[in-house]
């Protein structure tokens, strides 16, 4: 047995990592996986940099930011595995929810699966607030997060300037429902179960799921220290296989009750299992009490594959919102942070379906489609469309970045 330590934050999308450690998938690969729950993304970033953790559950843009030198400590990271697709939502407080509803057609529910419509009504509500001299504040968990980037994309696509029309602040995930209840923020974008916790407490309602903004979009990755990959690639491969098997298990709806109870434990998320079952199923109180729209996908449709096009899209948005400067050298570093080659090497010889390419044109698959896998079997992938119908072709990165510069300013 080889001991590996992995950090995580209390979020539903730590499910694959927790299942791997606790349900025997890591053991089967000869890994004694020690989980360490942490309190902030900054801690996860610093602790993996100094070697407290060998690996971590990490916001997808974070290893890219680390390799571009945006963090305080040196140390390269690699992202050889994605921890599923989707899993976030934009949630607003009751007051703003009522204002958004009043812009609608009289229906009492919010169109959480139609981000364009929801965004349009949010823009109208914000315009009304602006006329009334009222400011609006949203929260995300970190600037280098999918939450920050998708909230900004959602706003920009709806004609809202995320830097001028609203204020975006940082709040730790477990504190979001409290911040909303106290009125310190008007809305947030965060991973589950924190929107469902706000709904259960009666302090918030979801206006859009991550999936409605960009279907089948990346959220967390497994980050490993690059030195570990250099020194012992076989061990990283074994870890990827363990996580893959855990992801297969998590993907099975029949296992969700057990998964919810596992995640609910005090040492993991410390949130009631009933709430986590809603989170896993993608149910959001009265605005969607049926769920089941691929809200959080852990394995099927190549959900764990680290697409280079995901890395480059995240990079393009970090440039868009002035978190870094665009250069071909920087784009190359971002692209190289994701390691589909490691994923392929780890799963070669298993029954896992591997995509035929390392990147795809994001937004091209308006519907799920059967594509040939690397070994000629069929692999169902997508849909991957953006809410505004825009296409991201990673081969046209420069023009995509240039186009968006002219959008909202």
């Amino acid at each position, binding site marked *: 047995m080889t001991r590996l330590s992995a950090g995580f934050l209390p979020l539903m999308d730590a499910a694959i990592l927790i299942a791997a450690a606790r349900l025997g998938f890591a053991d089967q690969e000869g890994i004694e996986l020690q989980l360490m729950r942490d*309190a*902030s*993304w*900054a*801690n996860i970033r*610093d*602790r993996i940099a*100094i*070697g*407290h953790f060998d690996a971590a559950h990490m916001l997808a843009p974070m290893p890219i930011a680390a390799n571009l030198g945006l963090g*305080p*400590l*040196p140390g390269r990271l690699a992202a050889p595995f994605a921890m599923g697709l989707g899993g976030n939502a934009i949630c607003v407080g009751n007051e703003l929810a009522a204002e958004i509803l009043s812009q609608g057609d009289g229906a009492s529910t919010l169109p959480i699966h139609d981000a364009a419509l929801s965004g349009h009504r949010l823009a109208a509500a914000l315009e009304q607030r602006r006329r009334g001299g009222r400011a609006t504040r949203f929260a995300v*968990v*970190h*600037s280098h997060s999918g939450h920050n980037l998708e909230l900004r994309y959602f706003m920009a696509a709806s004609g809202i300037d995320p830097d001028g029309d609203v204020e975006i*602040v*940082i*709040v*730790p995930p*477990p*504190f979001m429902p409290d911040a909303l209840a106290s009125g310190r923020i008007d809305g947030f974008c965060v991973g589950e179960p924190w929107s469902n916790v706000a709904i259960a407490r009666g302090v918030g309602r979801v206006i859009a799921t991550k999936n409605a903004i960009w279907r089948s979009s990346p959220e967390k990755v497994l980050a490993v220290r690059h030195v570990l990959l250099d020194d012992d690639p076989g061990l990283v491969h074994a870890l990827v296989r363990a996580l893959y098997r855990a992801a297969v298990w998590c993907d099975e709806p029949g296992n969700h009750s057990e998964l919810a109870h596992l995640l609910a434990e005090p040492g993991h998320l410390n949130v009631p299992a009933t709430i986590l079952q809603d989170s896993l199923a993608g149910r959001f109180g009265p605005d969607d009490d049926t769920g089941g729209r691929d809200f959080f996908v852990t394995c099927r449709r190549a959900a764990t594959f680290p697409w280079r096009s995901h890395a480059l899209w995240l990079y393009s948005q970090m440039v868009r919102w002035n978190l870094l400067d665009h250069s071909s050298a920087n784009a190359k570093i971002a692209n190289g942070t994701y390691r589909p080659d490691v994923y392929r090497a780890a799963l070669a010889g298993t029954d896992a379906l591997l995509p035929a390419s390392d990147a795809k044109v994001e937004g091209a698959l308006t519907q799920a489609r059967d594509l040939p896998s690397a070994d000629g079997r069929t692999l169902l992938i997508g849909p991957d469309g953006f809410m505004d119908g825009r296409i991201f072709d990673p081969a046209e990165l420069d023009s995509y970045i240039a186009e968006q510069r002219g959008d909202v300013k």
Partner: protein
Amino acid sequence: MASEETTSVLVIDDNPIRASIIEEGLRAAGCMQVRLATDMHGIAATIEALQPDVIVIDLGNPNRDMLENAFQLSRAVKKPIAMFVDHSDAAATAAAIEAGVSAYVVDGLKPQRIKPILEMAVGRFNAFAKMERELQMARDALSERKLVERAKAILMRQRNIDEERAYRIMRSAAMNQNRRLAEIAESLITAASLLDDEK
């Protein structure tokens, strides 16, 4: 210490006891400008008003992400603030994170002025952790003593023996099995409760 050489330090810690231990240490080390903040509310304004050279925050505080963002946005801070001035001092960085200390330092501040502050904070954090551990051990010892008392009573009742004999049986079992007395007591209590259930 000349006034222009005075380093101002802001300590952010939601544990008021630990915060005051650190504050006292900083003052003893000659830092006259020490401010404590236990609440993150309005922290950006505090930073702006205080203009600290060094900010110390515990790693267990989930608000580190919020704090870092406040630095990015704040115009008040003279230069971007980085954690640990000297990246080459990996051992000091590791020791600080090990202890649960995170420090932010205004870029350009001389390393020799930071080092004693950090070392002091690390030392105080470790002392506080040790104190907490000892407190926990004392609590555990108390509950262990209660366990032993309960187990002793069970044995006395079951075997109809006196207290001293019950204690000796447990102690020799602990010695023979190389286990702690409390563990023996725990298994006795568990066994007794199982047997009680069967009745």
